């Protein structure tokens, strides 16, 4: 879909090239993350794809067509572009911002209006409440979502994202990353994504391209970057806590336990106690008639408060979605001092649980893999 062929860029007055003879191919529907230390040429590479920076030499093919011969404005209208500080136009409403490229393409106003509503719904914002707002009235996370919506306005097959989640706080960032990954499952865009954060690269990338001093060091899957680093540079860049970073790659549904014992809100205290005993746990999860999670109760608390309604002992629990990464699950478990975390659907239906001990087992497994990797080679 995107093919860079021996692309180089030397800025005027500089002796060494910012990007040096770089060849890279990004397949359709894949997220390719360009990552590296500052000044490695990742942003220059990204901006050469939509020709905001013209390459000094080399070839660029987009969708099989030579992009260097095309009108740069026409080329850019078919490539979504999201940048770090979002670059929303402060003097235009949310709707006008999203309509930028459709207007350049002379869409009819009714079609534009419909598309704006559709996109706002897609990114989880209410069209009626948001579309006439100005960017200054929005939160950082909302602005970022609008930035993504604007880039997708004409449904371009390719999107370029330059540190899109860098300007928001860590909690919002995790949320935006997860949202974007589940959105990507639906929209299947070919994405080139720039970040300086290796954790983000591992989480977001189908492929990771590690750059250093304008050269491509390794272009591989996140697994291979973690466990088969090509040289010392990649190894150092990935860092020593590889086994923890693997948790970025694994999803909750990979270690989730399903068919867990539950009790419903209309059971009696005796029934609940019996179910707890059957399950050989000290607690049980409580769901309502529609199988939505209500919370959990402890055996001890029911026994100690026999005179009260057992439902008063139900405690609220933090939950996680099944497509979240294990690092999110681990963070949430540690923050809330829980040993299990219920997994729920978007509608709060209970799907299963993830247990701290299972995550620990996975970490132990990858430590073993790492130990094997670092064994000195026998000559």
């Amino acid at each position, binding site marked *: 879909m995107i093919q860079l062929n021996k692309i180089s860029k030397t800025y005027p007055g500089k002796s060494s090239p910012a990007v040096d003879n770089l060849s890279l191919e990004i397949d359709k529907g894949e997220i390719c993350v360009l990552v590296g230390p500052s000044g490695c040429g990742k942003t220059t590479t990204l901006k050469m794809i939509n020709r905001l920076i013209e390459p000094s030499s080399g070839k660029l093919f987009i969708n099989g067509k030579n992009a260097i011969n095309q009108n740069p404005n026409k080329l850019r209208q078919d490539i979504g572009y999201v940048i770090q500080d979002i670059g*929303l136009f402060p003097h235009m409403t949310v709707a006008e911002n999203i309509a*930028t490229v459709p207007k350049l393409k002379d869409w009819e106003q009714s079609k534009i209006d419909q598309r704006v509503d559709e996109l706002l719904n897609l990114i989880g914002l209410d069209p009626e409440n948001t579309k006439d707002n100005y960017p200054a009235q929005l939160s950082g996370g909302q602005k970022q979502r609008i930035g993504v919506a604007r880039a997708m306005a004409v449904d371009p097959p390719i999107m370029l994202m330059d540190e899109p989640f860098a300007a928001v706080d860590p909690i919002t960032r995790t949320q935006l990353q997860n949202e974007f990954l589940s959105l990507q499952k639906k929209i299947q865009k070919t994405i080139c994504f720039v970040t300086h954060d290796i954790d983000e690269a591992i989480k977001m990338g189908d492929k990771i391209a590690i750059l250093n001093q304008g050269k491509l060091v390794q272009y591989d899957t996140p697994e291979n970057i973690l466990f088969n680093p090509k040289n010392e540079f990649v190894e150092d860049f990935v860092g020593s806590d590889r086994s923890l970073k693997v948790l970025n790659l694994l999803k909750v549904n990979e270690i989730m336990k399903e068919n867990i014992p539950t009790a419903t809100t209309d059971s009696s205290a005796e029934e609940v106690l019996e179910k707890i005993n059957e399950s050989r746990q000290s607690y049980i999860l409580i769901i309502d008639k529609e199988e939505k999670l209500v919370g959990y109760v402890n055996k001890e608390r029911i026994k100690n408060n026999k005179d009260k309604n057992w439902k008063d002992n139900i405690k609220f629990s933090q939950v996680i979605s099944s497509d979240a990464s294990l690092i999110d699950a681990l963070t949430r478990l540690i923050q809330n001092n829980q040993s299990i975390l219920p997994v729920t659907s978007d509608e709060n239906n209970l799907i299963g649980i993830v247990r701290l001990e299972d995550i620990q087992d996975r970490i132990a497994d990858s430590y073993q893999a790492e130990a094997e990797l670092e064994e000195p080679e026998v000559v």
Partner: protein
Amino acid sequence: MTLQEIIDTLINNAPSLIIEHLQLVFLSVGLAILIALPLGILLSREKFKPYLPTIISFFNIAQGVPSLAVIAIFMPILGIGFTSAVVALTIYALLPIIRNTLAGLGNLDQDIIEAAKGMGMPAGKVLLKIELPLALPVIIAGIQTATVVTVGTAILADLIGAGGLGRMIFAGISMFEPARILVGSLLSAIIAISLDQALKYIQTKLTVQFQ
């Protein structure tokens, strides 16, 4: 000086001189906008960017030349009269407008412009839809400065026979008639303040209140 004298001056001399004065101001500032705006936009473009600090400091220094000197410089070339005064006033009014156009367009958030370019917006549209609307408050502030300065400087235009409120003030000085000096000065002050407020109003109407 009695109240009667002031009222007489106002009724008999003021109306035609006010009109002359406003003609001088509107013509000069209008011409200055027509010249300064395109010039400012041109100088703010990419290829002039390396020279921008030099250009801006040139205009800052030029602004320091006294207005009387500007009028004096043009008198030998263009002679005396209305036209000559308009040329001198126009040149003097150019400076704040160019300077503010450059400052307004030059200090825009580059990320916003890059986002526009990156979405395939042609350069002309980037200028019209993004750069100018965002720089408009600063540009209008330049026009406000130019207008106020021109109302004051136009008093001196009478020295080369261009008329306006200057005629009333200089007549008052030579005839020792304080009423004329007072009425002339106050009227030009009122004109300056009213035009300033009018432009401020236009600016708030033209700028989207997005903050």
